[in-house]
């Protein structure tokens, strides 16, 4: 956690600084040309753009520094910020070097340039103050691979060639390959979110002895074919989709949208190409001949909250949902903080408020219905049609039977009445004229019509149809309105203050979305997002996959590729991966295969003193990194280790045991009826999540709450996690199950079920000094058990 989370953001700047140090150490300032995006822009963005940037309303002194023409323009004051090649005449240089109140950035901003930063800016002006377009708005370029193998004959994995190039140039060396046990556990946890069995470990170790590379390739192939892959990576996507099982806000009523969750798992397992994966979720309903499955996929943007509090203006919260859809789409696919332009022009990125509302317009034209789904054998539309026919037929048949029913009812003895089913007894007691058609049918069927075969046959068929249709499961989907809503820009993002009307459109800094005569809609937007000419989407997605494997993306600000985001640590590698991803048909499985087959991924994660000194944050990737498992995987690993894990996939969310008193935290106390049978032991991603009262054992390990999109989980490390693993009744139950393993198969097996490797004799001795239950509890509380190494 400490590494990931650095409030001073010092680590974010590590690379830029490291690069500069190298640059200047060798050549001294002035001989090497500075690069705007790498060396200069981060300094300006951090310190200057807030007041001298894109947002014209916040612009001070009329000065704009984010574009060259602004920086070179003469100001009202008569001075000029930058006169290329003349630092001594440039006001910018004068002001950053000032020692009095004229200094920039001003004291009250709390910002301060270092001497090195001042020197860079001065040199850059001296070199002519060249600006370049922001890197992420330019299409990726596939460069030829750096040749950096020390042995010319050795074939180097493309990823490694980029990584080694940097490592060697910093006079470092990569770490050795992780041992086979660590490797299989790492691959299992990363690809499936489950530990390998003892048998799988043994087999892999044996196969590795014969041919390590083949063994690993075979293992990766097998894992990518295992359906648990869809569960593990499905959760990765569900974080971004802000999936949860309730409506949020104060009432937080349960909702049904798990069919969408199952769609995600299934789509990943069949390796639906990511471009298609995107299109179906953003606009599956608009595809020609949209299938039921494609409509389910549109649940992505139904994962917004619904406010059911009394006294609200529903339009306000519908618009809030649209705001969320815009922000989520921008963050998840484009890696842009589009949401920042909701109230004003973006302060840092070239996105005008008007452009925000043009993007908003795509998401302002929907209604939000539920779709009912049936088993594949059920032809619901045929059944619905037949149901209608039967109802009409039966209505006709009993149209003149009211008298018969009355006579029959009156003939019933008290005893006969009480022998009838409860609902019929109620019906008989009810007011006759108020009975509906279905009620009359029921009475006739059991009473005067019980021998009427012409009635009974269709009547029973109708029942059967009703029962079948009753098995349908509803899920929340998107549907385009036949007539689009008008969209206006809202002043200050306030929906009560509409201004100019706008039409659908995308930010002009990105390649244009080609309009047709009918105008554009969500489907066009979805296609534009995954168009190969879009410079962002592929980069953003490969970066987010990379982050999963190394704990950090090549772009550390995985949700901001804009001007405030960090520069990629390995820009050529990022571009290479993005292009490769698209060229391999947007296949996520191929992307996984590519990354995990690299030596970079397969390195040992053990810390090294030399790296600690030179690359404390591990930006150069000369080693792997230990990562605490995600909340759900903590549960899954412990369940698998103790043998209780249910292999069941999909279906309605489940209710494993939770501590008493948890559900009383919100306005409405929700019921939590603990699931029975195997549903008690399902994988963590199937646990029902109430947004306002999330399950504590998931929450405490940083599972997202589903309030907004989550593109990177925090990894905290707290006493409450310790209490959970030690004392939570659910986890204690796992310990008791693991105790049985110890009794049956011995300590060593139990140890290996938790951490895969063999215990040392010393470790075994510690465990042998305890009773079996204590030993089991120790194993489930080991840091190693809840980490992947």
């Amino acid at each position, binding site marked *: 956690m400490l590494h990931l989370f650095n409030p001073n953001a010092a680590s974010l700047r590590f690379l830029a600084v490291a690069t500069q140090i190298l640059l200047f150490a060798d050549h001294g300032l002035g001989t090497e040309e500075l690069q705007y995006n790498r060396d200069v822009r981060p300094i300006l963005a951090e310190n200057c753009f807030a007041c001298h940037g894109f947002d014209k309303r916040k612009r001070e002194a009329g000065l704009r520094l984010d574009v060259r023409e602004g920086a070179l323009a003469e100001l009202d004051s008569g001075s000029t910020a930058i006169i290329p090649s003349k630092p001594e005449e440039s006001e910018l240089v004068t002001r950053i070097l000032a020692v009095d109140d004229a200094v920039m950035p001003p004291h009250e901003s709390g910002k301060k340039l270092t001497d090195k930063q001042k020197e860079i800016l001065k040199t850059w002006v001296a070199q002519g103050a060249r600006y370049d377009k922001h890197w992420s708005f330019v299409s990726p370029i596939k460069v030829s691979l750096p040749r950096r193998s020390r042995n010319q004959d050795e074939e180097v994995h493309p990823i490694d060639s980029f990584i080694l190039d940097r490592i060697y140039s910093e006079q470092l060396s990569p770490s050795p390959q992780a041992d086979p046990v660590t490797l299989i556990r790492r691959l299992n946890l990363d690809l499936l979110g489950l530990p390998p069995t003892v048998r799988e470990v043994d087999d892999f170790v044996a196969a590795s002895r014969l041919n390590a590379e083949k063994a690993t390739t075979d293992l990766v192939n097998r894992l990518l074919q295992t359906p648990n892959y869809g569960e593990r990576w499905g959760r990765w996507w569900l974080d971004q989709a802000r999936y949860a099982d309730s409506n949020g806000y104060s009432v937080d009523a349960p909702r049904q949208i798990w069919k969408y969750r199952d769609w995600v798992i299934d789509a990943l397992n069949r390796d639906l190409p990511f471009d298609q994966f995107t299109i179906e979720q953003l606009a599956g309903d608009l595809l020609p001949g949209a299938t039921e499955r494609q409509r389910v996929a549109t649940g992505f943007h139904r994962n917004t909250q619904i406010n059911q509090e009394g006294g609200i203006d529903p339009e306000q919260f519908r618009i809030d949902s649209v705001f969320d859809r815009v922000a989520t789409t921008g963050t998840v696919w484009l890696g842009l903080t589009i949401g920042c332009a909701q109230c004003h022009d973006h302060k840092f990125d070239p996105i005008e408020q008007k452009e925000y509302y043009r993007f908003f317009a795509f998401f302002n034209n929907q209604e939000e219905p539920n779709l009912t789904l049936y088993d594949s054998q059920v032809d619901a539309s045929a059944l619905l049609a037949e149901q209608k026919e039967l109802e009409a037929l039966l209505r006709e048949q009993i149209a003149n039977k009211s008298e018969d029913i009355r006579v029959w009812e009156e003939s019933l003895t008290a005893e006969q009445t009480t022998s009838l089913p409860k609902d019929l007894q109620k019906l008989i007691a009810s007011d006759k004229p108020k009975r509906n058609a279905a009620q009359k049918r029921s009475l006739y069927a059991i009473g005067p019509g019980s021998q009427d075969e012409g009635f009974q046959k269709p009547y029973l068929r109708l029942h059967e149809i009703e029962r079948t249709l009753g098995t349908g499961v509803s899920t929340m989907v998107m549907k385009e309105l036949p007539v689009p809503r008008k969209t206006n820009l809202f002043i200050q993002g306030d929906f009560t203050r509409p201004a100019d009307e706008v039409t659908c459109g995308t930010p002009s800094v990105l390649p244009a979305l080609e309009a047709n005569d009918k105008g554009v809609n969500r489907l066009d937007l979805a296609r534009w997002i995954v168009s190969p000419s879009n410079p962002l989407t592929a980069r953003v997605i490969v970066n987010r996959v990379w982050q999963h494997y190394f704990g950090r993306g090549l772009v550390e600000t995985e949700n901001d590729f804009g001007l405030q985001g960090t520069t990629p640590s390995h820009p050529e590698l990022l571009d290479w991966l993005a292009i490769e991803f698209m060229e391999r048909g947007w296949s996520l499985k191929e992307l996984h295969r590519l990354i995990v087959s690299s030596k970079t991924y397969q390195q040992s994660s053990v810390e090294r003193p030399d790296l600690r000194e030179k690359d404390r944050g591990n930006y150069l990737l000369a080693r792997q990194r230990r990562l605490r498992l995600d909340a759900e995987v903590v549960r899954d690993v412990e369940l698998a280790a103790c043998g209780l894990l249910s292999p069941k996939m999909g279906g309605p969310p489940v209710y494993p045991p939770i501590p008493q008193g948890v559900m009383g935290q*919100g306005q409405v106390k929700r019921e939590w009826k603990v699931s029975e049978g195997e549903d008690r032991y399902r994988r963590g991603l199937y646990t029902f999540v109430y947004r306002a009262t999330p399950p*504590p054992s998931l929450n405490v390990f940083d599972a997202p709450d589903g309030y907004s999109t989550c593109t990177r989980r925090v990894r905290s490390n707290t*006493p409450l996690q310790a209490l959970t693993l030690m004392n939570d009744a659910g986890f204690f139950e796992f310990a008791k199950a693991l105790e049985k393993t110890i009794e049956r198969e011995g300590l060593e097996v139990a140890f290996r079920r938790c951490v895969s490797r063999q215990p040392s004799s010393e470790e075994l001795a510690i*465990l042998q000094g305890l009773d079996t239950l204590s030993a089991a509890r120790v194993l489930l509380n080991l840091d190693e058990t809840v*980490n992947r190494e």
Partner: protein
Amino acid sequence: MNDPTMQEHFLQRQTRRHFFSQCGIGVGSIALSNLVSGFSPAASHEAFSNPLSPKATHFPARAKRVIYLFMAGGPSQLDLFEHKPILNQLNGQPIPQSYLDGKRFAFMDSSHRINLLGTRRTFKQYGQCGAWVSDLLPHTARIVDQLTFLRTCKTDLFNHAPAKLFMNTGTGQFGRPSLGSWLTYGLGSECEDLPGFVVLQSGPRGPRGGSILWGSGMLPTTYQGVPLRNQGEPILNLTTPESISGTDQVRVLEAVRKMNSKRLLETGDEEIATRINAYEMAYRMQTSAPELMDTSGERQSTLDMYGIKQPKEASFARNCLLARRLVERGVRFVQLYHTNWDHHGGPTENLEEHLPSISQEIDQAGAALVMDLKQRGLLEDTIVIWGGEFGRTPMGEVRESTGRNHHIDAFTMWFAGGGFKPGFSLGQTDEFGFGPIDQSVHVRDIHATLLHQLGLSHDRLSVRSQGLDFRLTGVQPANVVHELLT
């Protein structure tokens, strides 16, 4: 050593000694860094520091701790603190249209009305400062010279859940840290065996909004509020499983520590050291939290002062006492939620019956808390806050009985201690109590002022996320309200 507690104590001492001698964790990390060759002591020290360890302030602080009495639902300032005789004179008549132009309210499509509603309460001035308080709060009335009233609070949102989020996080958007998280993030905690940010609840139901109100947003969950429960375990999973003896628990912890330490030496991953620390603190919490909840050592006079009749039963009064016990132990931020102040005039929430009863529930204990802190010298550097997510309208609603709608233009909060000016009122409202006539104080300004008293600049306390520096007070201007401060 046949006595199990004796044995436990011995083991506990042993455990701690091991921590210090073998790992050097908790007191410093010299010992460990010596074991792990090549790791410099300075670097290790930084990495092993607890994320909750006390941090330097931006400037000298006036206060160290906060107790926030959150009156969930929106108390009616017009029946408690704002004396507006004209409401009774013009009862039933419409408020002039000029007040309403451009305004939006909750329940616009149903029960919202524009007719003024008088109050049944009688108001008097109290103390040296002459603050107006209604007959519903006799105990509060007696301590007005300790309080700082802010009568022109302004918020932006008028539905409960969004407004509570706004009051706690400075925005209606999701995913931002709450006030308590910002404080534990900015200041750390001075308590080593309890969480730095604790939440207590009382009243018929939880606050609307749920756990997000004390969430840590983009900050690590280390900084989120930990609910302390009045029934069952005070902290979830605090209790060792029933069948496990204390001795066994210590043995397990000891073995976990040994094995984790070994792994630390093998991998060099400092996160393992943090986890070892976390287990150590978890174990301390197992003792300290029940001890905190056990009020049997409190004097009867103290219980009487708070109005606690059943010391073991959950109540706002008991929570106030627990709040004092928490800040005594160095907990940084204690937030009490008491429901339900949403007096619209519905069958279970009206001004005649339910406002008096809830006022009675909080009055004595809230006043006792302030005086208890004062007697113990804690009020000097502890801020007590009283207030809801918004106030209520001068206009009545049309429901089963008498009530008022949500109101965001001007409502009352009070503060005590921590450098707030005692016996002082700021802000005047118009004759109807609808809006401010002098100074409006926005939630942002309140947040800026609170941070200021705790030694933090609201401009500088930030966290970077998505390339932006997020602050409690957001991007709009926020001002420290110096008039409120001594």
